[in-house]
């Protein structure tokens, strides 16, 4: 499907979600509550069949946190972006999608490590790179005490 077709199909199918055409891909933003169900649908629906999660990024949006999922369908070769935001940044949490795409299990561990986003129902949520005593460096309020990175 082209981006326009994809956009109209998604708009028809996911009425609750906020859908727009970004610079390259169709972007769909869903609430934290709808995330898991949406992810399942995106993979299951024959016309979409987004089975390849090629990038999962945690972003600190200042007032809350978000995860950006870049998805591709191997069969149809179309790409879309799914976004979900947490309710707040004090205890950010989202449902895991590692049962939908296995690779998310490890990317979510990375996001947990570097941004401190908690993933509900994740079977193995440990830090990926850093020691437990570190903070979460990619958060914007992270204090870099030894000033390794200066802005």
């Amino acid at each position, binding site marked *: 499907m082209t981006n326009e077709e994809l956009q109209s199909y998604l708009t028809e199918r996911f009425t609750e979600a906020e859908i727009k055409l*970004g*610079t*390259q*891909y169709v972007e769909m933003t869903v609430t934290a509550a709808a995330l898991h169900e949406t992810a399942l649908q995106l993979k299951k629906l024959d016309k979409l069949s987004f*089975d*390849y*999660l*090629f*990038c999962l*990024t945690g*972003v*600190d949006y200042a007032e809350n946190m978000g995860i*950006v999922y*870049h998805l591709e369908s*191997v069969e149809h*070769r179309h790409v879309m*972006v799914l976004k979900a935001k947490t309710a707040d940044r004090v205890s950010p949490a989202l449902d895991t999608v590692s049962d939908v*795409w*296995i*690779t998310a*299990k*490890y*990317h979510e561990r*990375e996001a947990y490590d*570097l941004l401190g986003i908690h993933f509900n129902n994740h079977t193995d949520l440990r*830090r*990926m*790179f*850093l020691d437990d005593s570190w903070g979460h*460096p*990619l958060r914007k309020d992270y204090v870099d005490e030894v000033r*390794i*990175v*200066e*802005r």
Partner: protein
Amino acid sequence: MSEIREVIINNDRLATDEYLVNMGPQHPSTHGVLRLLVRLEGEKVLNVQPHTGYIHSGIEKMCEAITYPQIIHLTDRMDYLSAHMNNEAVALCVEKALQVEVPDRVKYIRTIMDELSRLASHQLWWCVFGMDMGALTTFFYGLRDREKILDIFEETCGARMTVSYNTPGGLMFDIHPNFQKRVKEFITYFRTKLPEYDKLLSGNVILRERAEGIGHLSLKDAIDFGVTGPSGRASGFSCDMRKHQPYSAYPLVKFKEILDDRCDTLARYEVRILEMYESLSIIEQLIDNIPEGDYAVKMKGVLKLPEGEFYQRVESARGEFGVYIVSDGKKNPYRVKFRSPGFSNMFALNKMAKGHKIADLVAIMSTLDLIIPDIDR
């Protein structure tokens, strides 16, 4: 024999325990600082858990504090064998955001350099793979040929591995006057040497016994784990970004995407060998036709990307490399994410190695071609 086995099985005192063994972070076969926690029953692998972070350098965090042309120099420290492709991904992403069209000359040179990097990377992979299997000779054969490519890099870029040859808007400098001549010499030379690789290792009985049917990764699992590059294509996963999202001069050249549906260690081995032939053919199609023109577009002194999100996918030697830039309109990015192929590839290791012997684990890991700074970033 079977009676003895029964006695052992039925006797608790003689039963074997499971072992937890640490492979790495200094194990030679992990090629860097990766620690594998392996659960063993005798020699049989029950479970492999990779532990990362020994060489985490916070590159994504550093990127938030520096400008876009500076990011280029960090990206070749990640996957140092695909340095040129990593540089290109950032350059292309920034060019896309600023809507800059680079001259054809740049596109051609970038593509040639991409393929030379891929060759150099596959050569190193081949010689190290042989070494992991216990065949030291391959190491000398591979490195001998790789030196020739690194010499070409040195002459044109001034560096052998961390080339930093790309810059947003084009290239750092024009190619060296000797470049075309030396690349053509190299192609003629390597076309005679590549069959030697097959003679030396590909047909070796020990290698085939140890590789055939070992480390099976089905197509469904490859997609699910996001295993890309030659490792993914050996499972029949058509994931070549040069074909699916063509960039630079790739739309202009003819080449085959090497796919294999045997899904085992041998398939991953053969896909890489065949890819080397394809890379040679791509360079041959371009090297004589490099158009005249500028080697870079004049860019502003301070690059500020418009507010928004930009994503660029390229095919590195290890698989799909992605750059995701979130910009808030300033001269530094708000957030940069590097989708490194090694990260996703590595976690399929458990799936592939389970049930095999520990020596097979080394071979399987070698065919994934892991570069640890690429994983830890």
